């Protein structure tokens, strides 16, 4: 009998609360730090979004000058992507993956802490441009030559580059840690094809980070050299090529889209079976579809560059359309999981269903954009803004909130209030669609993105006003969520170790788990060990009753 129970004295070692959180190498605490840090940046970038939408509500420049406006949308995009969506999903992965595979911690706990602490530092550096004459203002893609030292003189762009290099380094270190953890730390019996789908999506995601982020780092270093040491990577006058930046950026930037959507897909694939009381339909097909998306993601980057005239359109258009195949497999699996399930509409399930419907729209508008003739019309219009928000917000962020409501009881032993959660969901769902659906119309009507002002005679006023109203509805929807978190910490319902009757190993330990995660593990014979454990006697009855064998679930 193997046991790792700690001696009573081991727990009596006490540090101050602050020092404990600052120096922790426990993957659960680091995961929570990731999540809290990400939400702080989420609110900061959300305020910037409100600033942008307020300026665009009606024609004319009301309260921002153009440069301030440019900084606002640049910081909004940069922070939301690099300091909210990616790290918050890394945070949930950090907390959940070791638990799901029955491990006591990540493979490299101290590197785990290092990759977290780079994040707030990088984020502060990016924001600190505001203190030194203005933040970066070239859009989150930082295209050259706009971002070179001639057109962007301030140090804001340099701080953006340094900050993101730190964040990128953190991502690379984190990805090494995740891949090593998943390959080396699984509990006995947890074979690759018994890993929960979330672990598979994290494995593919982190492999993408490992392979794509260094290329972006090389690009950022090249741009930094151009800006500060007289280099000419991107300067055509000295033998450089500005399009090179777009290649290096999007070689990373398109896998980045899957980096933020795949873990959300994994979260939804964990939640749907629990709230439909059915196994996930087509587990292996789902795994192979995830791997296929990961592989394809490296052959589609230039669909962001159709209008440059320097890429081979048929190839990148075809490869992009091909992404719809594995994604379609996943949608089929999700639908088939829901089909005839006994569905309960708890808040995590609502957000998961919100993910399915909104990400579907984002995926379809992506397929629209994969066609070069249509893309030539829609490039850099609000249609693209609508598309990317349906993927990032309707997809990833809904997945993030689904994960928050689903795993909150595991992290803190208390369940978030369901009524407030439902108010949060519906306000956010309606606000999201009111904000971003009209942008499709604006884009098809030709409204370019990244403009601070537009003509009153352009015919864009009404939908812009609607969109701005929706943005404030999203902001209001966050208030019941914040209140919910505070109220739950003060007086939330204590719900025990397994409130949702989950399938995966994190529900087999206490809430919150002890520092070493598990005192003992159930036997792992499928991808749903806790389900098997709960129903182990049912299976014996099924075996005993021959008439049930044919129709019985395994």
């Amino acid at each position: 009998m193997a046991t790792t129970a700690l001696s009573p004295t081991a727990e009596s070692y006490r540090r101050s609360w602050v020092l404990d959180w600052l120096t922790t190498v426990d993957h659960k605490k680091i995961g929570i730090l990731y999540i809290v840090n990400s939400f702080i940046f989420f609110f900061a970038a959300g305020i910037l979004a409100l600033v942008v939408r307020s300026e665009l509500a009606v024609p004319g420049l009301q309260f921002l000058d153009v440069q301030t406006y440019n900084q606002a949308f640049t910081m909004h995009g940069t922070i939301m992507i690099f300091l909210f969506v990616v790290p918050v999903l890394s945070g949930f992965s950090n907390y959940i993956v070791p638990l799901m595979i029955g491990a006591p911690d990540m493979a490299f706990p101290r590197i785990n802490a290092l990759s977290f602490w780079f994040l707030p530092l990088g984020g502060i550096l990016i924001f600190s441009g505001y203190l030194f004459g203005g933040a970066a203002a070239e859009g989150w893609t930082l295209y050259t030559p706009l971002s070179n030292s001639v057109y962007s003189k301030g140090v804001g762009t340099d701080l953006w580059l340094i900050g993101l290099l730190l964040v990128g380094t953190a991502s690379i270190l984190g990805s090494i840690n995740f891949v090593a953890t998943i390959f080396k730390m699984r509990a006995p019996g947890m074979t690759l094809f018994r890993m929960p789908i979330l672990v598979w999506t994290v494995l593919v995601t982190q492999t993408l980070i490992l392979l794509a982020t260094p290329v972006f780092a090389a690009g950022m270093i090249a741009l930094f050299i151009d800006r500060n040491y007289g280099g000419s990577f991107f300067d055509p006058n000295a033998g450089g090529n500005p399009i090179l930046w777009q290649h290096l950026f999007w070689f990373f930037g398109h896998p980045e889209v899957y980096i933020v959507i795949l873990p959300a897909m994994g979260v939804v694939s964990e939640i749907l079976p629990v709230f439909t009381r059915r196994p996930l339909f087509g587990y292996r097909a789902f795994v192979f579809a995830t791997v296929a998306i990961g592989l394809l993601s490296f052959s589609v980057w230039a669909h962001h560059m159709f209008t440059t005239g320097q890429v081979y359109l048929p190839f990148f258009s075809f490869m992009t359309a091909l992404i719809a195949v594995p994604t379609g497999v996943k949608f089929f699996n999700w639908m088939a999981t829901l089909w005839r399930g006994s569905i309960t509409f708890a808040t995590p399930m609502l957000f998961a269903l919100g993910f399915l419907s909104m990400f579907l729209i984002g995926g379809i508008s992506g397929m629209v954009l994969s066609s070069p003739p249509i893309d030539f019309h829609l490039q850099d219009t609000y249609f693209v803004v609508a598309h990317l928000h349906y993927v990032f917000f309707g997809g990833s962020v809904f997945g993030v909130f689904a994960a928050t409501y689903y795993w909150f009881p595991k992290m803190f032993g208390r369940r978030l209030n369901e009524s407030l959660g439902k108010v949060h969901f519906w306000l956010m769902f309606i606000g999201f669609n009111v904000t971003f659906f009209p942008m499709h119309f604006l884009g098809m009507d030709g409204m370019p993105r990244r403009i601070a002002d537009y003509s009153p005679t352009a015919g864009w006023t009404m939908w812009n006003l609607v969109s701005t109203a929706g943005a404030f509805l999203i902001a209001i929807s966050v208030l019941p969520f914040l209140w919910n978190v505070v109220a739950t910490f003060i007086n939330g319902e204590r719900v025990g170790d397994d409130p949702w009757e989950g399938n995966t190993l994190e529900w087999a330990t206490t809430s919150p788990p002890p520092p070493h995660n598990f005192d003992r593990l159930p036997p792992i014979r499928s991808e749903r060990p806790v389900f098997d454990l709960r129903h182990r006697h049912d299976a014996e009855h099924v075996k005993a009753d021959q008439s049930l064998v044919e129709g019985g679930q395994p």
Partner: protein
Amino acid sequence: MSVEAPALHATVEDAPLSRREAGVPTPLLGMLLFITSEVMFFGGLFAAYFNARAVHVGPWAPPPPAAALEMLPIALPITIILISSSFTMQFAVWAIRRGDQRAMRNWTALTLLLGIAFLAGQLYDYSTLGFGISDGAFGTVFYTLTGFHGAHVFGGTVGLTILVARASQGQFSARNHVAVEAISFYWHFVDVVWIALFSTLYFLR
């Protein structure tokens, strides 16, 4: 904090909590993954190099007054030095696999000296080339690629220094020397990058 197990699995057979270490040791896997990311990083820089060559008009040569990159007197000798250091590193690994810590320390120290000699040679080469990083696309890609390679060699010398220090304290044995293996992987990787870089700069005229 309570560590009592939930009632759910109080009756379940006890499974061992960690499995026997098998296959690649975890730290070595971490190093291999890190090297993978480094391959992609240098891939990005090489892409920038070949892009600059592709859009370049006229002969691909350093800006005047330098006429061409010369293998002698510096570039070829330091290449031979760096390649030799991969062999000495591997002798160190074989030594510690036999449990000969003293030989391992000496071979590692020799590797460290060769690495420092390479860096010194590279810096001297820089001082004699006659063009800088801001002298057109050639200067930019030349100094960026060789500079980042040099920075990686420097990182390797830090690792080697730690190995020598740890070996002097008797921390390695035939069974327990994963750090030596990991640093040797990194050192070989840096060497391979230099071979690719040297071939690109000096052979692909």
